[in-house]
């Protein structure tokens, strides 16, 4: 998928591709030319991405090639053991969780699961969790608490699934209970917003001691489209709504809702998974290091203070 404002970038990328194709011999005569184009591309990418509008950032945050939770796990973990089910009703494919090893840290991971393609997205419900998903996450958080291991939560969802069965099985209760339990969970919680932080569906696994956001991720009380259709009865005004809502990582940092913004490579996370994942890992490890040495009592008290201050 090619975003409008990325066209100049994509053109350079095409040229580089063509040159690389022509230069099939190992003694690549186009070497310097390619290097120059790469340099230009990086510069252009920086330039374009420095000036993105909030609505453009929304599009980047939703980009289908952006790294997903499975990519972070695959890139960062030496070990991952998926655990299924809420021990009550079902196993929500829209929420992924399990036991993971990040560097020297054993953590319990939970997060929204999006797909790589339409088929996967249908299977995972586009990362929209059902009550079972929130309950699976809570079960795993309790396991983390039992073992005194940190929880790492990956946020990337358009929102909690708005279906009739989700209502029947207590979407509201499932989110509310998670908020309540997470606020006193006796173990560290680190949250990373990697793509879309969609409202209640995001915060339902998003209460943490430290909340991080990827530079081009978003986090909002309502989708820009939803906001526009309420304010102007016109979903097409989403760009205006995106600006009004202050939903970018920079906004949230300024508003003291997130603790750190994780930089993305020039041209966005979807252009370079490896670099994105590596930056995320670095940030996560830094915070885990601090958190695992804190006393649980102080940690939980600080968590309470942190949230009680928001909007004071």
């Amino acid at each position: 998928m090619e975003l409008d404002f990325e066209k100049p970038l994509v053109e350079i990328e095409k040229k580089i591709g063509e040159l690389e194709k022509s230069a099939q011999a190992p003694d690549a005569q186009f070497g310097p030319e390619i290097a120059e184009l790469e340099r230009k591309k990086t510069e252009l990418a920086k330039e374009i991405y420095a000036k993105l509008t909030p609505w453009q950032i929304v599009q980047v945050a939703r980009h289908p090639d952006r790294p997903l939770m499975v990519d972070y796990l695959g890139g960062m973990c030496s070990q991952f053991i998926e655990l299924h089910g809420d021990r009550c009703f079902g196993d929500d494919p829209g929420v992924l969780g399990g036991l993971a090893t990040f560097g020297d840290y054993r953590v319990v991971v939970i997060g929204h699961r999006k797909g790589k393609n339409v088929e996967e997205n249908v299977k995972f419900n586009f990362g929209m969790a059902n009550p079972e998903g929130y309950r699976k996450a809570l079960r795993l958080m309790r396991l983390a608490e039992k073992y005194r291991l940190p929880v790492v939560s990956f946020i990337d969802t358009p929102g909690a699934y708005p279906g009739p069965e989700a209502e029947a099985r207590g979407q509201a209760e499932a989110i509310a209970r998670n908020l309540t339990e997470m606020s006193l969970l006796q173990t560290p919680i680190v949250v990373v917003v990697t793509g879309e932080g969609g409202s209640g569906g995001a915060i339902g696994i998003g209460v943490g001691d430290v909340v991080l956001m990827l530079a081009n991720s978003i986090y909002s009380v309502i989708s820009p489209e939803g906001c526009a259709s309420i304010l102007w009865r016109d979903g097409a005004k989403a760009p205006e709504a995106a600006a009004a809502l202050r939903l970018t990582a920079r906004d949230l940092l300024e508003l003291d809702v997130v603790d750190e913004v994780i930089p993305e490579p020039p041209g966005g996370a979807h252009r370079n998974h490896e670099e994105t994942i590596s930056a995320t890992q670095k940030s996560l490890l830094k915070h885990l290091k601090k958190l695992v040495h804190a006393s649980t009592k102080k940690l939980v008290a600080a968590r309470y203070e942190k949230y009680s201050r928001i909007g004071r």
Partner: protein
Amino acid sequence: MGWFTKSKKPVEALPPPEEELWIVCSSCKAHIFKQEWDKNLQVCPKCNFHEKLTCYERIHITLDEKTFREFNAEISTSDPIQFSDAAEAYKDKAEATKTKVGLKESVVTGSGKIKDITVTVAVMDFRFLGGSLGSGAGEKILLAADYALRHSRPYIVFSASGGARMHEGIISLMQMPKTCAGIARLHRAGIPYISVLTHPTTGGVSASYAMVGDLNIAEPGALIGFAGRRVIEQTIKQELPNGFQTAEYLLEHGFVDQIVHRKDMKDFLASVLRYWQRR
């Protein structure tokens, strides 16, 4: 089985009518003589629809006379994201609402007595921006929870809300974990917390403090749910059945402990409080 105690006394009627003589029930459209309507606590005598009450009406029919002492009355809306649509800035909209409704936020909190038992209460008012969870509202609900914790008083929250307040963006969303953190402390400390869900309680309010009561009590017919009806209908591309997301539906699905008629609510709460008090 429902519930029973030895004595029940009638709840005081609402203050005498002022100007209008007739009320049109917003549910069944019946015309009701206003005096009857008020005497019936704004419950339609034809269809049992429980009309929304203002926070002071709720306090009047719930707390013993002259026992209510308000907390943090000075806390008002703030404008954390300087929100503005083309027509109007949120700041101005909020000011206009304050003047019109006579409140500074969508919730009033305080201390009072129910049949001589001291409680901490928070009462939402739907007239104030749809009872939305602004940062001032979240702050008041949390501060009242803290008060209940420090003084070991039962906490009762009457919800009536469309959910988060869009105009305060992410700061409104964060009132969900913020208020729930206050409730979590009550749970841990063994302080009773009753959530009373009144018409309507949806979105970010149903998905936070309103749904995690020791007891979740609802008024008959109240609309309670997470997602809006229209959003769900758009998702599944078909109409939802009648009765979906009502108090009765939630009772059947295990999320509400009891549905209590408005005229019995004070008695019911007093029963529960007496049960706790005698420890």
